[in-house]
């Protein structure tokens, strides 16, 4: 059985074979592991990997699983399943190019006007949520086409606060929250 799993933006092919109940041989990037496992609860799998014991806490997410091992949390998605499900949103990179609050927030100030030319990384809107103010930055060099919010507006993630027309220069998709 084969999977292509995505973790930290990298897609890794993994293989698993099971000959006995609760036992699998796993290969990840050419490395092999002897694994035995017990499901303890829906959120906990106890693993023995090459003799080493560990507890993996797991929660299903919209796009995959969140897995917590030894003080660290990992987000893993099934690349093939996501592909099958279709590129609904044009992928993650696109999303981070929008000027949108990362959580429900209130607009505190708008630092640009229609038609302004802004540089990548320039602050454009300040929003406040949960007692904290955050500046949203221009994700690329561009020109302000339209401002879709006013001071005091409650805004939600996904709502585009500023329509920014990209200038010719290429960008690397960074930006969003500082």
């Amino acid at each position: 059985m084969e999977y292509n799993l995505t973790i930290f933006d990298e897609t890794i092919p993994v293989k698993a074979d099971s000959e006995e109940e609760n036992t699998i041989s796993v290969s990840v990037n050419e490395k092999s592991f002897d694994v035995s496992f017990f499901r303890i609860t829906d959120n906990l799998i106890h693993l023995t990997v090459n003799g080493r014991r560990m507890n993996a806490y797991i929660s299903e997410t919209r796009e995959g699983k969140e897995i917590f091992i030894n003080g660290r949390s990992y987000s893993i998605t099934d690349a093939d399943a996501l592909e099958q499900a279709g590129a609904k949103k044009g992928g993650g990179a696109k999303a981070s190019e929008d000027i949108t609050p990362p959580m429900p927030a209130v607009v505190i100030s708008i630092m640009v006007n229609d038609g302004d030319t802004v540089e990548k990384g320039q602050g454009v809107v300040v929003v406040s949520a949960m007692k904290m103010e955050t500046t949203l930055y221009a994700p690329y060099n561009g020109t302000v086409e339209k401002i879709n919010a006013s001071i005091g507006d409650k805004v939600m993630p996904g709502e585009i606060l500023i329509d920014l027309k990209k200038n010719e220069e290429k960008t690397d998709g960074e930006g969003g929250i500082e």
Partner: protein
Amino acid sequence: MFKKILIANRGEIACRIMNTCREMEIKSVAVYSEADKTAMHVLMSDEACCIGESEPAQSYLNIEKIIAAAKETSCEAIHPGYGFLAENADFAARCEEEGIIFIGPSAKVISDLGDKTIARQLMVKGDVPITPGMTQTEPNPEIIAKEAEKIGYPVLIKAAAGGGGKGMRVVDSPEEIQEACTSASSEALSAFGNGAIYLEKFIEKSRHIEFQILADTHGNIIHLLERECSIQRRHQKIIEETPSPFMTPALREKMGNAAVAAAGAAGYVNAGTVEFIVDQKGNFYFLEVNTRLQVEHPITEMITGVDIVRQQIEIAAGNRLSLSQEKISGRGHAIECRIYAEDPEKGFFPSPGKITFMKEPAGPGIRNDCGVYSGFEVPVNYDPIISKLVVHAENRSKAIARMIKSLREYIVLGVKTPIPFLIDVLRSDPFVSGETFTDFIDEHFKDWKPEKGDIDMALIAYLADEMAGKTGTLSVAPESGGFSTPWQTLGNWKI
């Protein structure tokens, strides 16, 4: 003693206060907003009143609704917790008017100490050392610039009102001071409705060390030793410890006496915290008095064995302090880490949402003051604190080891937390050697990213989880092992 207390707060601190109430056989009444119908503090209460919509101004900051709830449920006293109305002199005054006991200092004391320049004047009178600088607000930037020249750069422009770093500017040279005054003042005006500012000397490479004090209505004041709270992000403490790794018995005595003098100078009653900044030579300066229960009070409880909330209630009931200064001593070392729903990789930005799974660490010397549960949705409307994880051990190095172990065993899924960040801080050389200055995070962890960790294991866990199927851990036990029925039919009503 009171029979019933209203707790005008939410989250972990409301729960922590109810714990003590229950031990004292005092009934606790919760208040809650629409967002908090099934919040932990409501579940723990004996009675609860809904006081309005989710916005704090409509509920947890709404003085009249809280007073009405207290009267409706016949509460004799109100505990304000921290945050919200805890340091609101108007609220304390309204309680006084209504004959409800406010568990905290008087409105007058809250109001005096809430103004930084009045507080500085009081301290000067009480012979408590303050940072060099002004004790009056000053509207004229020219005069401030002159004063800055006198005490020497760098200096700090500070708003008289508020806190949390707002209306505050560090100024390194005379060229910047005009602009700094203007921007600090306007920021303070918009944040606190008061643009008054003044000038202080800026102390570099300083530590934040505070003393817990208790003062009764009979004139007795004691302190419960210090806490060091230098590790801060966004002007908010995230790791606190006691004793301070910097402290010596001689300095502790000097600072403790100053803290008691500060409380005396202000006419303080109830529990409070006197904050100081301390430079590398051990000079210390009064910073402010927090006129409430402090977030980090548990570490003091761990090393002194005193329940501070119980002391607050006893004092509010007019009882005499049963503790005396010579009986207070610290045992071992305690550390607190604040666990917020926030993303340490993105400037500690809040990460609200549903906690899909949570498992709290437990074991000897571990205390987790928690205000949420698995399945609870951390609301977007409030401070996103999940819990305060506190450990106590024989000494500092054992306490660090215990905290690291506890953090590793603290499972929170569904929201981001600073747990991996905190582990890295606690393991770092500067923390281990006690080099804890207020610029610690900027200095050592500015662009922190987690190590990639054990990706192979995470992938293996993914596969094992797919293989294992779900048990459907519902409440019916299967008769003989194996998988249980995943879904229980609902009970049928006979009509």
